């Protein structure tokens, strides 16, 4: 009996050793359940580091990692059980606050899990593990090369920044200061300890951080690049929407249209025309994402109706053969509305893309960011920050799915210029519907797999023409029952006929009368 137990224990132990690093991507209810704690000292508002905390949150969301956000000052007040987290990311943006937060420092020193330090002045016991030596650069601009990027903008202005002079472990990316030709890694990692001395919001920096995070978190999988257009409304230029789909289709570039939802007047001709164009786009290598609603009592959308409204919109799309495979949301909106947003408005989806909010200060008012993770998420990046530096000649694996995000162009010339750039870049844009994705409401299940779109298990046919049988006599207002309609119609026609006939006769009389008048009075 004892021999069997020992063998079972050994087998189990070996099995554990040989097991791949646990993937953190999971639909967990709380960041505490094996997620990551992100603590920061300052949001660095008004500095070049502004937005890096929000960018990290977006990165973690894109990687499907549940995260809890905490300011160090609050941590020192309230404390937390660090043992509940698999990893801690500390963002130090303010050098003047280095000596504070003693409680956090004390708890961190006892933390057995993974630690990633972002910013200068890594705690000594971690720095020792990496045999880290840092230095400060001169006041000059820096460029970043990582993955497929070559010399992308990192620090455009002349600023001093901490860099890794010497360290053990794996290096990620390369920073170059062209003026002094100094080079240093963007970040390093050894085991569960990682260090990124300077991280700022921006697509290149975020991509570099994604490489670090992927290995630090032990995630697997290869990222792809997708093209995404957002800010599409029912009142966008529908002809341009169709033309853009055409142009991209001709260039062989699959794309995603992130379309804003419609919650009212779904039967109006404008909605029908909107859906017709979306159907056209879907048939021309396009994929649809739904936009997250703006939660606002002023906008008429409130939390308690969000789920119903979202389902209503999605059901209408499904019933018209349109398959939205994900949801796009402003990051600020997402963080501000927390769990209610994620659980209600975005509940049907298993894929998400968060757009940079443009207002990092929002995080100051955020309690706990939404912790729901999505099975498939994308990191929204800007073409102008990545495209010009992307070397597509050699295939390179990406650490996270990227959504090259464009606002929908206002004019055709703008669209054609952008598509030309995309085409000339040779970037391998992927077709989102080639993957397995699902959007589900109580009534319908919309899915994709290997490029095939289905609604409730039935494959939808992709119609390539945009023809909308819009009823020109559509009644926008319910006129209610009208009495004597036929009588008045007949009566109106009768009187109009009589009046027109009378007018014709009067015309004849006028002509006769005028001649008579002339001969009688004007001779």
């Amino acid at each position, binding site marked *: 009996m004892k021999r069997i137990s020992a063998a079972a224990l050994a087998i189990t132990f070996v099995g554990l050793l040989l097991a791949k690093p646990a993937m953190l991507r999971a639909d967990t209810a709380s960041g505490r359940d094996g997620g990551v704690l992100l603590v920061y000292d300052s949001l660095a508002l008004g500095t070049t580091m502004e937005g890096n905390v929000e960018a990290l949150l977006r990165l973690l969301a894109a990687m499907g990692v549940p995260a809890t956000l905490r300011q160090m000052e609050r941590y020192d007040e309230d404390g937390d059980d660090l043992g509940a987290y698999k990893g801690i990311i500390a963002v130090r943006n303010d050098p003047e606050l280095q000596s504070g937060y003693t409680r956090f420092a004390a708890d961190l020193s006892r933390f057995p899990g993974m630690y990633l330090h972002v910013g200068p002045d890594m705690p000594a016991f971690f720095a020792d593990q990496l045999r880290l030596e840092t230095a400060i650069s001169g006041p000059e601009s820096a460029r970043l090369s990582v993955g497929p990027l070559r010399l992308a903008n990192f620090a455009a202005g002349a600023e001093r920044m901490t860099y890794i002079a010497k360290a053990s472990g794996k290096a990620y990316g390369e920073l170059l200061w062209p003026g002094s030709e100094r080079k240093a890694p963007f970040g390093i990692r050894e085991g569960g300890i990682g260090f990124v001395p300077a991280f700022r919001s921006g697509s290149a920096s975020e991509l570099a951080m994604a490489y670090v995070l992927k290995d630090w978190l032990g995630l697997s999988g290869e990222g792809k690049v997708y093209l995404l257009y957002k800010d599409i409304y029912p009142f966008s230029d529908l002809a341009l929407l169709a033309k853009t789909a055409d142009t991209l289709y001709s260039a062989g570039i699959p794309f995603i249209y992130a379309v804003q939802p419609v919650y009212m007047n779904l039967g109006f001709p404008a909605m029908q025309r909107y859906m017709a164009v979306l159907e056209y786009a879907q048939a021309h290598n396009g994929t649809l994402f739904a936009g997250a609603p703006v939660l606002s009592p002023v906008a008429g959308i409130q939390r308690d109706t969000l789920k119903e409204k979202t389902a209503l919109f999605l059901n209408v799309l499904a019933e018209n053969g349109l398959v939205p495979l994900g949801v796009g949301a402003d990051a600020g909106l997402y963080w501000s509305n927390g769990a209610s947003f994620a659980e209600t408005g975005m509940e049907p989806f298993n894929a998400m893309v968060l757009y940079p909010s443009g207002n990092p200060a929002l995080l100051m008012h955020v309690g706990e960011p939404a912790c729901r993770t999505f099975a498939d998420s994308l990191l929204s990046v800007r073409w102008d920050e990545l495209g010009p530096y992307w070397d597509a000649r050699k295939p390179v694996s990406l650490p996270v799915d990227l959504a090259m995000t464009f606002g929908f162009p206002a004019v055709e010339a703008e669209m054609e210029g952008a598509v030309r750039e995309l085409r000339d870049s040779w970037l391998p844009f992927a077709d989102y519907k080639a993957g397995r994705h699902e959007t589900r409401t109580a009534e319908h299940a919309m899915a994709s797999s290997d490029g095939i779109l289905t609604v409730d298990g039935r494959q939808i046919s992709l119609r390539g023409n945009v023809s909308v049988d819009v009823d020109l006599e559509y009644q926008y207002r319910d006129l*209610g*029952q009208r009495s*004597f309609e036929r*009588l008045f119609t007949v*009566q109106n026609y009768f009187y109009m006929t009589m009046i027109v006939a*009378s007018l014709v006769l*009067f015309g004849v*009389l006028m002509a006769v*009368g005028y001649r008579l008048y002339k001969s009688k009075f004007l001779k």
Partner: protein
Amino acid sequence: MTAADILMVIAVFCIWSLLLVNVVLIIAGYWYYMKCEREPEQTLTGDAPFVSVMVPAHNEAKVIVATVESLLAFDYPQGRYEIIVINDNSSDDSAARLARLQEKHAGRNLIVLNTDSVTGGKGKSNALNIGFRHSRGELIAIYDADNTPERKALPYLVSELLRDDSLGAAIGKFRTRNRSASLLTRFINIETLSFQWMAQAGRWMLFKLCTIPGTNFIVRKNILEEIGGWDVKALAEDTEISFRIYQMGYRIKFQPKSVTWEQEPQTLPVWFKQRARWAKGNIYVIVKNIPLLFDRRGKAIRFDLVYFLSIYFLLLTSLIMSDTLLVLHALGLVYTTIAGFSSLLWTLAVVLFIVGTFITLTTEKGELSLSNLWLIALMYVTYCQLWLAVAAYGLYVYLKDKVRKRETKWYKTERY
């Protein structure tokens, strides 16, 4: 379907039906005009009958001299007509002026009958009856005290009666002498022309019917004797006498070549009072003769009765009803589910009104002008809408006097 819907349907049907009737009358009236133009000018042949020309006047000092001078200038044998001016209870210097006129035209048959509050002062009908008792003519012609008839006005009327024994009376045309005095008189000028050429000429052409307009008309004396003169209770004595002439089996013909010029009200209050009096008077006549609608004796006047009933009751109430319902509906106080009106139809109707009225102006020299066209358009939205108030007020006063059993009161139109 609500009660408001049913009322609206009736109102709309009435309004549009009357509109079509008026269109028919315009066409018929113009047809008659063209017919008259083709006819050779009628001249008196044989002995000219003796005509008594009566002029009831009350405080008409401002205008009476010009009127009598015009009457004295008729192109009619001077010895074959007399002028009887009934100076009825005047408090101005009409009597003195008329006396001077008599002196000036001493050799003429100019008779002035001055009455006071005891012998007269009971309105136009009573004054005419007084004059009638002094008349010698076999034909009686009437002119209002503010009229200046053309020289041939009387001969045209006399020759009509002489040519057709079935005629009991003949009426001429009246024009607005002061038509340029104000915007109101310009409207009245258009109104009187279109009314005469539509209502008078049109009805004559279709039904051989006309209504005596109160001035510039001639009637056989024996008819007046038979009907006992004028009804002193009738404010619209002209309409009243027309009905009685028809009932006797005679007809009244419209002779447009006989023209008189009269002064019309220049201000709105004066106009309103005058027109309300006419409306009230016509309503009295209509109500008085309603029983004849269902009587064989009323055959001759049935169309006129129905026409006037339609105008004063049906059209008036339909317009008031439909306007009221629309206003109440707009205020949310009444709910109608009626199908919407065609705005095109209403536009066409307005155009029809303008064109139809303009056609009637082609009959008169100087009236075929662009300014008149604009005036007609303006009339539609102003002057014509006022008629609604006039008719409604006339009906109200009639009912009030009926209920309170008040005597008929004559209102004197102000002169200028």
